[in-house]
């Protein structure tokens, strides 16, 4: 995992520098800089349309910022295609769930292991010896995630027909299947009732304890954010207006204004 980072605990895992993103005349992000530290839970908060999802989209290569750089493992992510960024160990979930809805939950997770699979096509077509062992190895890895997220009953259910909360969970599982070294979670708990939210928060904390990787989460529920995160970044109109521990952010004037004003 992040051995490199663990040997220098103060070194950021990922550095975002002066990101500016425009769509035509719309300025979506202005001069955003922040670091992701090893093994932290970093929350990004802000009113609707502040640009939170856009930040994650820049990190995963789905949006291309006009200026700025995102340094991770000595590479600038703004210049890499999305699938290469995933290969470097950046996993994510989506605000609008993006599952492989025609596949079972299990197959969604197995598809998530893509970058960890090695056997080429020819071996795959033969499915014998090495290939079978590889498939079984990945199956075992995926079953561990299924146990962790308590998805046993829905293992073979079609992902597309599952209720909302469970689809969110399958999506988290699929991101975990990638064995991510940084995990980006876009509103994992939005649209859930209190009980479901608490479950999801518990899963996220379990994942964090087990994997010891930095988590970046976008969340609207302030109570929850302040409870589980180590550090908080506040965005408003595409600008970073505050950054710090939950307590620092809570007492920040600009933040209070942004939230009361919106």
């Amino acid at each position, binding site marked *: 995992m992040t051995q490199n980072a663990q040997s220098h605990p103060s070194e950021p895992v990922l550095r975002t520098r002066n990101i500016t993103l425009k769509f035509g005349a719309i300025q979506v992000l202005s001069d955003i800089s922040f670091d992701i530290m090893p093994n932290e839970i970093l929350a990004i908060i802000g009113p609707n349309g502040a640009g939170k999802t856009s930040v994650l989209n820049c990190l995963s290569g789905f949006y291309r910022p006009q200026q700025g750089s995102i340094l991770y493992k000595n590479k600038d992510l703004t210049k890499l295609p999305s699938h290469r960024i995933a290969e470097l160990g950046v996993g994510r979930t989506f605000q609008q769930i993006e599952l492989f809805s025609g596949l079972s939950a299990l197959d969604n997770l197995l*598809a998530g292991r893509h970058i960890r699979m090695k056997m080429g096509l020819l071996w*795959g*077509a033969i*499915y014998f010896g090495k290939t079978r062992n590889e498939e079984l190895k990945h199956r075992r890895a995926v079953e561990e995630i299924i146990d962790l997220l308590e998805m046993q009953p829905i293992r073979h259910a079609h992902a597309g027909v599952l209720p909302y909360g469970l689809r969110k969970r399958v999506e988290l599982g699929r991101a975990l299947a990638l064995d991510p070294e940084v995990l980006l979670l876009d509103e994992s708990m939005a649209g859930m009732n209190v009980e479901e939210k608490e479950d999801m928060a518990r899963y996220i904390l379990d994942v964090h304890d087990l994997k010891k990787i930095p988590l970046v989460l976008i969340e609207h529920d302030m109570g929850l954010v302040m409870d589980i995160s180590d550090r908080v970044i506040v965005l408003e109109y595409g600008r970073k207006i505050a950054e710090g521990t939950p307590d620092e952010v809570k007492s920040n004037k600009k933040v209070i204004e942004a939230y009361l004003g919106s």
Partner: protein
Amino acid sequence: MYLPCGTFNESYRLDSAIVRTKAHVAWCLAGLVFCLLLLFSGSTYLIHFATLTAITIISALGLQVLTGYAGQFSIAHAAFMAVGAYTSAILTYHGVPLYLSLPAAAVVAGVVGLIFGLPSLRIKGFYLLMATFAAQFIIMYIITHWQGLTKGEFGHPAPTAIQDERAYFILVMVCLVAFTIATKNILRSKAGRAFVAINNNDLAAELMGISLYRYKLLAFFISCLYAGFAGGLYAHFYRMVMPEAFSLHSSMWFLGYLLVGGLGSVPGTYFGVILIMGLNEGLTNGFAVLINIYPEVTRFLAPFRQVVFGLVVILFLIYEPRGLANSWEKLKKYLHLWPYPYWP
């Protein structure tokens, strides 16, 4: 997931096995017995028909990988078959043995497929269908006009050392089994999972680390590999290749087999090809008999054969859009509860 009574998943290995239930074993045995019966029946007509059907299934399995698994449409499948057919015919004509010419046919068709698969990186769905439409015409234009190589419209001889049709039938059946197993295996491999992921949600697939570029082209390559191999088998079956055997019409029928059989399903591919080819053969024979009895009426009705086919596909699209494979699943569920829920 539906499993019959008495079948237990005791390990991950069992859960991901292909031949899983007693019924699967029974189907394999039934297939074997059927082939043996055909061989001992000594009916050249039946053996011919079965060989042709099996070759068509191999080719259709290839399109299944491209369209059923990876979700990329192609209406040039017969043209890719033609590339394989001509490659193998020309090679054997110059003395290359069949066991080398067939793999060569597959690879050459695969590479041609790779080239014509390039538009898939830019366009999807209906637009891709139109782009492959162009591939069909370009390939067939080259084949009919490059007379120095292909001997043009008069056809190119495709000699083979296997003269006995029963021996050829066995060869084709062995190939069919191999390609069927490969198609099933691909689905649980890295590439197969990538194909299905792209088909389901290309955005998510890319953000899970799947290179769309690489896997779309790979799907075209594999699909045309099957087509090329089947094309080679087809050429040596008739010992002659003619361009008109690989028309746009037959390319469309390959999509028809998948639609009727069920996209993405290997048994569905079998169902689709057997149903449509069987229907065609039945209608042809029926008309041949009728024309002696009611020549006038039959001559009037003859053009309606095409109408019958069109109707079959339309009815499937309306009533069973997921194909015969889905009807089969429903039938299994029904039989599972009939007449008692627990049947050995």
